[in-house]
């Protein structure tokens, strides 16, 4: 028995170790990003800052999709609710400028949480899973987009709203690109490491179990619907956090921040990085953003065609993600070399 105990103890550390590479990559990534401003001009820095926030958005989707296996086609809804929550409360309500950003942030995240909880309750408790869940969330983005365009008195309609102040707290304003960059980086780092820490623990195991076999997880005593609902709501809140911070940088909000194309772009970001890897979502966002700059500079219409082709290639050639595809090829190459020796 004592032998077995040490084996089990070793196993415990091993299962902790198993996630080390991703954690290491995450630490490395944040370190690199924290020295980037030393080598960048202000204009590039504002772009990188947007990438960090989109990375946070991608992370929010990966927490739900990557772990539960249920794809949400509606995450732009939550990003957009954060964005519009911030925009509408800072423009329409005449709130004291010293705490308007905090109010906007709370309104945006609160809206997303309420919508996610309501929609999540109706569909997850109704037993809607898999592709039907995806369709319902797709419709959710269409609904949100309709409202953003149609309710122009509040949302500014097609042209959106302009004049959102930079994020500020306790009288300190993050209007300087350097300051707003570090704000984005710190928020991303906190969310990323918390997500890694929480999902590598028991909750991550339970979510994987639900993904494998929900009925079985239920017979083990887990309230699977509630667990899925909470994960969905948390994921939506992170998406709205990204959206709310994003518009304090751009200064405006527009209906394309709550649109289907954004919902699908975020899927690509996660898929490129490898869904379920968390840090991969951030890296995927950066890679796709870089590609988008290159392709859009050739032609504006080329970008949607590139995304479309990528979706098809993803299914046909690397169904488990490009990262896994490259890794497999490298492994196969190493094997064949070993075989030759």
């Amino acid at each position, binding site marked *: 028995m004592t032998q077995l105990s040490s084996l089990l103890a070793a196993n415990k550390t091993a299962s902790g170790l198993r996630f080390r590479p991703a954690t290491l990559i995450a630490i490395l990534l944040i370190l690199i990003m924290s020295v980037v401003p030393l080598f960048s001009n202000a204009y590039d820095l504002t772009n990188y800052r947007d990438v960090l926030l989109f990375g946070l958005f991608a992370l929010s989707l990966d927490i739900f999709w990557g772990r539960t296996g249920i794809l949400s086609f509606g995450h732009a809804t939550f990003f957009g609710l954060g964005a519009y929550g911030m925009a509408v409360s800072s423009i329409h309500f005449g709130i004291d400028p010293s705490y308007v950003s905090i109010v906007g942030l709370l309104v945006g995240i609160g809206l997303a949480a309420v919508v996610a909880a309501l929609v999540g309750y109706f569909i997850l408790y109704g037993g809607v899973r898999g592709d039907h869940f995806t369709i319902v969330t797709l419709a959710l983005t*269409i609904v949100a987009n*309709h*409202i953003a365009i149609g309710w122009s008195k509040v949302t500014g309609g097609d042209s959106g709203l302009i004049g959102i102040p930079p994020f500020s707290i306790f009288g300190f304003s993050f209007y300087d690109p350097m300051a707003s960059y570090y704000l984005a980086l710190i928020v991303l780092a906190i969310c990323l490491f918390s997500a890694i820490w929480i999902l590598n623990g028991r909750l991550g195991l339970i979510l994987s179990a639900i993904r494998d076999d929900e009925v079985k997880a239920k017979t083990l005593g887990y309230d699977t619907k509630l667990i899925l609902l909470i994960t969905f709501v948390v994921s939506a809140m992170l998406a709205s956090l990204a959206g709310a911070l994003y518009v304090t940088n751009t200064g405006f909000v527009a209906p394309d921040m709550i649109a*289907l194309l954004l919902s699908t772009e975020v899927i690509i970001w996660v898929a490129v990085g490898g869904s379920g890897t968390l840090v991969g979502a951030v890296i995927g966002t950066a890679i796709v953003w870089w590609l988008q700059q290159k392709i859009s500079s050739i032609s504006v219409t080329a970008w949607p065609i590139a995304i479309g082709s990528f*979706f098809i290639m993803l299914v046909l050639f690397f169904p488990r993600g490009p990262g896994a595809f490259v890794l497999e090829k490298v492994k196969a190459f190493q094997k064949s070399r070993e075989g030759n020796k």
Partner: protein
Amino acid sequence: MSAYIPYFLNSLTLISILLLVSMGMAIIFGLMNVVNLAHGEFITIGAFTLVVVERVGGNFWLALIVAPVVGYIFGLILERVLIRRVYGNALHALLMTWGLSLILQQVIQLIFTANPQSIKGPFPGAISIFGENYPAYRLFLICFALAVFVVTVLVFKKTKFGLDLRASIQSPEMASVMGVNPAKINAHAFASGAALAALAGVLLAPLTAVTAYMGLNYLARSFFVVLIGGAGSISGVAAGSVLIGGLETFLSYQIPVTVAQAAVLILAIVILRFRPKGILPA
């Protein structure tokens, strides 16, 4: 009383439109279980077939015949080249057809520009019904949609093709033992769904702005018509259309149209909570 006639006819028009756009969806998604996010673009292709036919000197009636053929061939090729690789994997079907949808939208826009296309519909006039003038084309649309629906239901309930399709979906192995080729049946079923969507596109074109993105408006609604009606039953489409179309018309008399559409989709989500299998499950 007479005030209710246009209201009633408007409901019928919308119900007919939903019926038309959802029937293809009922075959591809409801029966074959393929989540096809490019369904909207099948409708768009139908509408642009009308644009092309009119440009080369044809008319609406010719397009009404040509569009389903174009849709059918397009669907057949698509099924053979791409869709058959994703049967049984909802996530892959979803990603692939969404990719297709994005590409088709851009290609159509590249060819025809982003401006709405001008088309000439038939029947410019109005007909008087119980003393109320109502556009003749809409009345035609209502009758035509009903006819298409009846024919489709009959094909799927009574013909050998319909029987073979239902058999090969329930058990491909059994069907092939019985001498049915499931691969062939699937290809034709998918193509029929595309043909129906293209036909809907022609019929919709005179009532809406014909652009590369027009199909997107109908994508979510046709999914919901099928989900609410009950996936797996063609007749459920009628129930779904009546419910969603009726509600939307009713609400759009009280609130802005976009908000009404949004409200109906939200109601549909609520209905799914209590009837996850739809109101008329197969």
